[in-house]
């Protein structure tokens, strides 16, 4: 197996009595485009937050490119880029200022930050709206600007939480091509998603999380096991409710 970019061991997190992440282990090889899929409330966002140093775990270890996130957060944070589920951006900065600010915070010289910001805005189809305040951006535009912030320092490992939620098909295609291109240069991408078709199409590695535990992980082919990823997912996670017999009142033919 090639060198590991992301290595997670025994990661746990509880909120009060609820165990959100119940000890997950994960290994993602460098240069992978990996998907993390799971039903709502399975622990995807909590896991990604702990992997990126934004949420302190109760137990466990996360190593990114050989750097322990919780023993040496400074070094680990320098090699990652993060796109959170709810694009967290400065509402009163323009798109252009937002990307430049992210670059300068990451220690890039101002001229380099500006130049990279302009190129990213171009690729993300935001140039026409570069001088508009982020407060006036749509959900998809925010997602794209957030991706620009995560990429501006050229991180070798990228984490994305639901990167295509609320993004139109044209922009989604642009993001997909961008992610494939990043991975082609040897960087690693781990993203969570509900869209099985997307994960099946572009990911070479997939992990399924349910009730805070990884229930399947490996190459996409291995996890699918000859079925569609959607079917494999439902087989592993199981239907969420027992049946519809209690809904006899529902439907136009009922009174």
């Amino acid at each position: 197996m090639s060198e590991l970019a992301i290595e997670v061991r025994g990661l746990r997190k509880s909120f009060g009595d609820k165990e959100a992440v119940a000890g997950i282990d994960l290994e993602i090889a460098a240069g992978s485009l990996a998907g993390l899929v799971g039903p709502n409330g399975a622990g995807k966002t909590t896991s990604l937050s702990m992997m990126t140093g934004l949420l302190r775990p109760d137990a466990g270890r996360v190593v990114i490119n050989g750097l322990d996130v919780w023993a040496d957060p400074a070094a680990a944070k320098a090699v990652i880029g993060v796109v959170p589920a709810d694009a967290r951006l400065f509402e009163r900065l323009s798109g252009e200022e937002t990307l430049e600010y992210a670059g300068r915070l990451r220690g890039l010289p101002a001229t380099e930050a500006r130049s990279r910001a302009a190129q990213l805005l171009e690729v993300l189809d935001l140039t026409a709206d570069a001088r508009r305040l982020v407060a006036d951006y749509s959900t998809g535009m925010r997602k794209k600007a957030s991706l620009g912030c995560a990429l501006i320092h050229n991180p070798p490992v990228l984490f994305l939480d639901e990167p295509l939620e609320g993004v139109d098909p044209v922009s989604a295609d642009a993001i997909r091509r961008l992610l494939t291109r990043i991975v082609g240069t040897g960087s690693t991408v781990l993203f969570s998603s509900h869209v099985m078709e997307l994960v099946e199409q572009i990911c070479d590695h997939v992990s399924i999380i349910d009730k805070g535990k990884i229930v399947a992980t490996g190459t996409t082919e291995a996890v699918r096991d000859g079925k569609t990823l959607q079917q494999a997912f439902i087989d592993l996670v199981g239907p969420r409710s027992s049946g519809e017999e209690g809904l006899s009142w529902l439907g136009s033919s009922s009174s």
Partner: protein
Amino acid sequence: MARILVQLKLRLLLNALRSSTAARTTFFFSTFFALVVAVGGFYVLALFRGNSASVDLTTVIFTAFALGWLTLPILATGLDGTLDPATLAPYPLRTRPLAVGLLAASATGAWPAANVIALLGVTIGLAAGGLGVLVAVIAVLLQVLFCITLARLVTTSLARMLRSRRGKDLAVFLIIPIFALVELLGQVIPRAAAEGGITAASFAGVDSWLRWLPPGLAAHAIQDASTGHPGTALARLGLLAAVIIVLGWLWIRSLSRALVTADTATGSAQVRAATLPLARYGRRGAVAARFWIYQRRDPTSLVYWAMTAVIMVVVSASTIFGPHQHPGVVIASAVFGAGFVGYFHANSVGFTGPPFVVEALALTSRRSLRAYFSGQNIALGVIAVPLLTAICLGLAAAVRHPDQAVPAIAVALAGLGAALCLSNILTVTLAYPMATRTGSPMRQAAPGYASYTFGGILASLAGVAVAVTPVIIVAAVTSSDPAAIRAPVLIVCSAAYGLALVWAGVRIAAREAEDRLPELCQIAVQSTV
């Protein structure tokens, strides 16, 4: 409908109580203060018995309660979840029963009950005879109903406006005159009264026009019934009821519009500058640039500066307008001004909200955290130093003691240093999530964290007061020295002292933040912008 919404409000209260210790603490504080208002209000109104100006004073207090109902939801409390038209819009509800339900929900809780109890003090203070007491009870109930309907009308209209960014931006500026009015009622008038500048007789003129406003109608109806004019009393109560019906009708119209109107303003703003300023100054410059832009573009930040100015003027107001001269009050203005600059920025993580995560991801070392806090202080200092200096000069001229400007500016500079030092430390140690509640344009402590706000005000004001004490002592001791030498030495030394405090604050805050960044991120994520 009324039952469902009242039950919903009670359920929300209970759930909030169960959610956290902070929420319980806030609830108990709020209930305690409601009790104090109930007992205190009742006592004060009852004290007016036998006073020749009792009806005038009662009118003023009734008006003050109405103003409280009008302004507090906008300034501090917002609306509760049961009263937001947006949450009810998807349900097939007819507007009239919905309005009755919302009114009943508004009347549920400790504060409406405290209002009724407090105002019932008129049954002792103003009412006389059986008919007088009966009219007093009806007048109090109508007065509280008037307050609730008025507050709902204003907040429902605002809630509609607050759904767009531009509407929010405009609404925030409403805070400035409201805040100035509240400060005038809460600070200037009581202090002037305590100094003898305002007596019971001063309200005689005020009453001549206040009596025609709804709270005045309620108060005068009680007096009419108690002095043998039941017909006039009934006419006044009828007029008050008619006002309530008109307000209710306007509210129902506003509510039905609010249920189907998305927002009041569209369009988007373009920025002129293509790049961030302070390009040569690395991370510190980037953070200073971001904070500087926010001070200009974020209406809440602009309002904070305006509030600081209002507070400074209010502290000196009794000397400017009153009969007694206390020139030292300009120094007190400087202390309060600096203290509030510290408080307004003492929860910078919660105030920044979720975008703080972008910053936290890049703050990888103690050094970068120092750059973060000092960048923030540079942006605030660039505004605060000239603002406080100018106000101190203005106030010293207004109290006709220009010589007070020098010690006041010295205190302001040292105080600002202490304020920024404390705001950095409190940002890390007393961080709490903030939220924009329905019906209020301002961001406030998220539900359950109001006690943190009081902690922030107390720590900032007390800390600044303690830190500037040496400057005040030195200013007093050197007051007879030649001004040409004293003024520059005092100002330069105070500024240096202030800078030393800022330097210490940045170092302490950075050291503490290094270990707490994940926790600070969680607080930021819980905030809403």
